[in-house]
């Protein structure tokens, strides 16, 4: 092996050598720089291999031939090697990225770049305190130089602010070092730790000074105004080094110092870290400048890692895995994002829409976004899982909550940014990235995936990048060049194949969900055949969602369950975002979903009590008094997906604005994920009481209110898709109500709703989508009389609403019948009345679909429209057949489920003898009902034809128009504000209180952040005062240590 001393020597030597070259030999100098960086990276890589693969022991390098403390010693172990590789690779890639700038500025700039990389190596390797100081000063000087790479003219000011603060840091560090030396008699870090410096006279103060000086290099809030200015003004390639590598090296230095400080200083590190994490993510919310926002995010991430280091007392051996996972995710993603920002001309977040139309860049961006947000399958996800579990296991719940809150804030602004890219205004100029810059960004993205694979392998869990469904979904990224119909066929085949493969292993409940999610998904995908072109981005997102769903229903332990949950959330977010005007709705969807996911994570972690392996079955054994809290966390988490009232505000927009074939997927299928979760929860935890309140009773109320309010809101919609979306809230309310009844019939009813809602909601969304496609509007009062032009859509809608309203003979009636039987057994009367009430309300809105769209007068501009496209109609008619079959022989699906539910609730099972179904209260004979209704229908229809045979046809314009044309013509349309009287009577129930609540909350956060960030006045002296105040306050607080 090459001695690691060459990592420092090569950098330093080459930097001096560059000084000897002639100024004109720029290419040679550049080549030399790259060679030196590649060489040092290779040395670091070689050592990393030796430690990680061959299991080599850490090595000590004695610089002057004598051991410490008589000479400076360096140490190289696994973490050092990994960090060295990170620093050198970041340096190398930034050097490649800076090709033009460096060639322009000449060899001096290259030398400074080499020095900063070398200095990071020194910080990582050295075990000597004064040596550490020297390398930090080298970082300061080279940073001062490299900031000037930027073309931004404010960079000078930022650099000077940095120099001022680093003067203060230097003063503290030097005084601290000399007194530490005075107290301990050595400058060696391990020597000081052995002498337990902090116990010696004066040692504690000396340590404080050193510690605070090094921590200041991590740019903790609030002593970090200078750092943000640097991020905003510096060249992005330098910011990449500054954020990814320098911060990592400084973190490692803090880690070494904590060795001296011992356990007493861990809480201090934790406090500084978590304050930085939460505060800087909050302050990032109102940012509009991309690089400044990335700066805030960097500060936050580094704060999080500092928190992890501060928790090493409970994290133990996992510290390296967790801190490393977050650190490398942060480093790769942040460097990548800074590199990308160099490709975007404008500095406003909205200017990033320039990335649109560049699939490679978007892929890279999404990778970095997911890495920063800690989404699977990236290292941050595994790290977050372990971290939260250990924190929960040791009862550090406040810290846990703060970490999740900060992470949610961060995800919020990152995903909002992504929304700008995908849905922002069309860019005026298309960016043509230079090949070397593009390669650098892509290398970072691929490194992210490689790290994800590595961390999956290192974790005690399933390596997600080895799971077949996820790989299948990701495979579509490689197939993007194919036309959409080929990809569609592949996707359908994949779903069906996965169902067939899994079929023998499913229990009846899983079978129902698998049928809906996989086969049902394939059925909806048939509608996607109508799409032309390549439809870039659709298939990876859709299949990611299906992969998550497929993994969710077979998940045996909490890790796999949660990973699947996050995958399906992310996939569906990308799907929803594809709609034309869906940007704000997709954002609120992802924020609610991630918030819910974090609650689920916290719930599982609390239940597992520190074990990171926790089977779903074990939820049964969760002890009091923890159990009800676990129940609450999980239930709220799942209810974000089913859009229970209060958590529903994302749903209408997200479902209504989605593309025609996406709406049924996210409504008919995705909502069931939440129900599946609730099934799991109630099946394993049953009834729980919190402060004497029966929690299932609360759920029942939520279900009843969701049904009532959802239905009420639906009747006042003018937009047909929004109407259907609100109706989903109501339908999920029914299902939740059924589940919460905790008896046999209630569960059967919930399952019936799972099946029925999938069928009729998918069908209605498809028909309405097809109509909207043809008419160009979703507003119902702008339609009318379409029955003759779109008869097939009419039939589908008619059948759909018959089924949904629960009148005989279709399957909705079966649902109702079970439902009425079930509520007879319910223990609570008032929610039962509410749910009864919401039934007729459903008629009101369903009626409008037929009445306003298909009946009445045909609009002039619709005279020539055609029937909906074939591929959109086809699945609808398959649904019609399904509805008929399911109506005739409901036992086909329900019988086995009924038997299955008997395991949990032996009482109240139905009797499935013959063709009739018998309950305690009566019987239901689907076939005879069908026959009776059919006969009545045919009789009436024949009679109608008979009496109408002499009717005279009246042409549409065979009437007299008179009066003025009003200002808003639609107000005179009879279908506009159709239920105005009801609105007058019940409108108070539909006030957007919940929306108002969440909006106020986000406004409050934004306003608070906007006020708070004025703290960073931009004045260098104020920043210096911030720093000193930070030191003084921390000193006073740490006296308690």
């Amino acid at each position, binding site marked *: 092996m090459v001695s690691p001393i060459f990592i420092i020597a090569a950098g330093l030597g080459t930097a001096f050598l560059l000084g000897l070259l002639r100024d004109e030999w720029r290419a040679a100098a550049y080549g030399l720089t790259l060679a030196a960086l590649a060489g040092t990276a290779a040395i670091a890589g070689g050592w990393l291999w030796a430690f990680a693969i061959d299991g080599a022991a850490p090595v000590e390098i004695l610089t002057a031939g004598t051991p410490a403390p008589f000479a400076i010693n360096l140490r190289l172990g696994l973490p050092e090697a990994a960090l060295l590789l990170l620093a050198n690779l970041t340096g190398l890639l930034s050097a490649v990225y800076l090709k033009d700038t460096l060639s322009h500025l000449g060899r001096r700039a290259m030398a400074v770049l080499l020095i900063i990389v070398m200095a990071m190596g020194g910080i990582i390797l050295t075990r000597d305190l004064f040596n550490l100081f020297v390398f930090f000063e080298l970082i300061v000087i080279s940073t001062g*130089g490299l900031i000037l790479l930027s073309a931004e003219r404010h960079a000078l000011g930022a650099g000077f602010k940095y120099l001022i603060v680093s003067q203060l840091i230097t003063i503290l560090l030097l005084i601290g070092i000399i007194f530490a030396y005075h107290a301990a008699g050595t400058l060696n870090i391990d020597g000081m730790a052995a002498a337990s410096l902090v116990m010696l006279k004066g040692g504690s103060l000396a340590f404080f000074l050193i510690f605070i000086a090094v921590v200041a290099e991590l740019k903790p809030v609030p002593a970090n105004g200078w750092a943000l200015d640097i991020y905003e003004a510096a060249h992005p390639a330098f910011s990449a080094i500054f954020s990814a590598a320098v911060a990592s090296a400084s973190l490692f230095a803090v880690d070494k110092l904590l060795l001296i400080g011992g356990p007493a200083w861990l809480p201090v590190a934790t406090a500084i870290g978590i304050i930085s994490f939460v505060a800087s993510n909050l302050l990032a919310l109102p940012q509009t400048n991309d690089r400044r926002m990335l700066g805030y995010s960097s500060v936050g991430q580094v704060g999080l890692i500092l928190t992890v280091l501060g928790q090493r007392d409970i994290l133990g051996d996992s510290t390296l895995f967790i801190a490393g996972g977050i650190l490398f995710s942060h480093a790769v993603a942040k460097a990548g994002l800074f590199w990308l920002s160099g490709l975007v001309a404008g500095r406003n977040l909205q200017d990033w829409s320039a990335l649109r139309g560049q699939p490679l860049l978007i892929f890279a961006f999404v990778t970095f976004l997911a890495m920063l947000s800690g989404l699977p399958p990236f290292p941050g996800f595994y790290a977050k899982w372990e971290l939260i579990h250990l924190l929960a296991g040791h009862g550090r719940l406040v810290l846990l909550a703060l970490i999740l809150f900060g992470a949610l804030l961060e995800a919020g602004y990152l995903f909002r940014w992504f929304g700008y890219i995908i849905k922002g205004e069309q860019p005026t100029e298309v960016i043509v990235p230079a090949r070397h810059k593009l390669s650098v960004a892509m290398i970072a993205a691929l490194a992210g995936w490689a790290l994800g694979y590595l961390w999956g392998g290192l974790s005690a869990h399933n390596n997600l990048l080895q799971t077949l469904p996820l790989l299948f979904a990701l495979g579509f990224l490689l197939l993007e060049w194919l036309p959409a119909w080929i990809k569609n066929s592949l996707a359908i085949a994949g779903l069906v194949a996965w169902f067939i493969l899994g079929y023998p292993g499913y229990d009846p409940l899983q079978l129902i969900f698998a049928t809906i999610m996989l086969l049902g998904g394939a059925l909806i995908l048939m509608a996607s055949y109508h799409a032309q072109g390549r439809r870039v981005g659709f298939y990876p997102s859709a299949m990611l969602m299906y992969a998550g769903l497929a993994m969710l229903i077979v998940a045996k332990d909490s890790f796999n369950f949660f990973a699947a949950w996050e995958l399906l959330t992310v996939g569906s977010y990308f799907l929803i975002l594809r709609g034309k005007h869906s940007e704000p709705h997709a954002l609120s969807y992802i924020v609610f979903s991630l918030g819910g996911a974090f609650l689920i994570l916290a719930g599982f972690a609390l239940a597992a009590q520190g074990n990171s392996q926790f089977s779903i079955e074990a939820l049964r054994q969760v002890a009091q008094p923890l159990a009800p809290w676990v129940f609450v966390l999980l239930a709220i988490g799942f209810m974000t997906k089913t859009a229970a009232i209060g958590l529903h505000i994302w749903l209408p927009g997200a479902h209504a604005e989605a593309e025609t074939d996406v709406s049924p997927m996210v409504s008919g299928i995705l909502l069931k994920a939440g129900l599946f979760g609730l099934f799991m929860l109630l099946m394993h935890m049953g009834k729980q009481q919190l402060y004497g309140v029966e929690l299932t009773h609360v759920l029942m109320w939520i279900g009843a209110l969701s049904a009532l309010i959802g239905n009420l809101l639906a009747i006042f919609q003018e937009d047909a898709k929004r109407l259907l979306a609100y109706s989903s809230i109501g339908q999920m309310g029914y299902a939740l109500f059924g589940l919460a009844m905790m008896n046999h019939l209630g569960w059967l009813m919930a399952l019936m709703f799972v099946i029925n809602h999938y069928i009729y909601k998918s069908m209605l969304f498809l028909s309405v989508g097809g109509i909207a496609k043809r008419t160009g509007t979703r507003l119902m009062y702008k339609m009318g009389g379409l029955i003759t032009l779109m008869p097939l859509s009419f039939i589908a809608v008619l059948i759909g609403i018959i089924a949904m309203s629960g009148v005989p003979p279709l399957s909705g009636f079966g649902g109702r019948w079970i439902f009425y039987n079930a509520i007879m057994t319910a223990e609570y009367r008032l929610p039962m009345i509410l749910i009864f009430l919401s039934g007729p309300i459903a008629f009101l809105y369903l009626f409008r679909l037929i009445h306003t769209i298909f009946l009445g007068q045909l609009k002039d501009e619709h005279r020539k429209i055609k029937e909906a496209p074939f591929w959109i109609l086809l699945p609808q008619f398959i649904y019609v057949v399904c509805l008929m079959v399911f109506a005739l022989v409901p036992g086909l699906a329900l019988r086995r489920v009924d038997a299955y539910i008997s395991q949990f609730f032996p009482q109240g099972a139905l009797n499935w003898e013959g063709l009739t179904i018998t309950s305690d209260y009566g019987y239901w004979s689907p076939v005879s009902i069908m026959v009776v209704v059919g006969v009545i229908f045919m009789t009436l229809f024949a009679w109608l034809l008979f009496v109408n045979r002499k009717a005279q046809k009246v042409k549409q314009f065979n009437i007299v128009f008179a009066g003025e044309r009003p200002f808003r013509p639609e107000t005179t349309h009879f279908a506009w504000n159709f239920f105005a009287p009801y609105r007058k009577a019940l409108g108070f129930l539909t006030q957007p209180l919940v929306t108002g609540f969440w909006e106020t909350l986000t406004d409050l956060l934004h306003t608070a952040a906007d006020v708070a960030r004025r703290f960073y006045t931009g004045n260098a002296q104020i920043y210096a005062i911030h720093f000193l105040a930070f030191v003084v306050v921390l000193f006073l607080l740490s006296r308690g240590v």
Partner: protein
Amino acid sequence: MAHIALATGFILILIGLYGALTNRNILRMIVSFTVADTGVNLVIVAVGYLRGRTAPILDATLPAAEAAARIIDPVPQALVLTAIVIGVGITALMLAYAYKLHETKGSLDIADYRELKW
């Protein structure tokens, strides 16, 4: 002696900090930091000083065998040399920045460079 040096050092540091925080002129700030740096160097030397001992130079008058008992601690002196060199480097860099800043705006008032904020 050592205490006087130590106290002087700290007083210089405080004077320097006060100057750097109250003067808005960039050149004055740089000079103030130089004063503070000098104070730090003085503190370092003062901490290493041992009463009644000689300089840590081994020669004919000071055989290696007696060195440990007769010389003052050489480490702080080595440190202070390094610290001085680094201080010079940083001061030079700050002066270069001051020159460049003046070139862009014609002002040496630190309060004029506040475009980056919030």
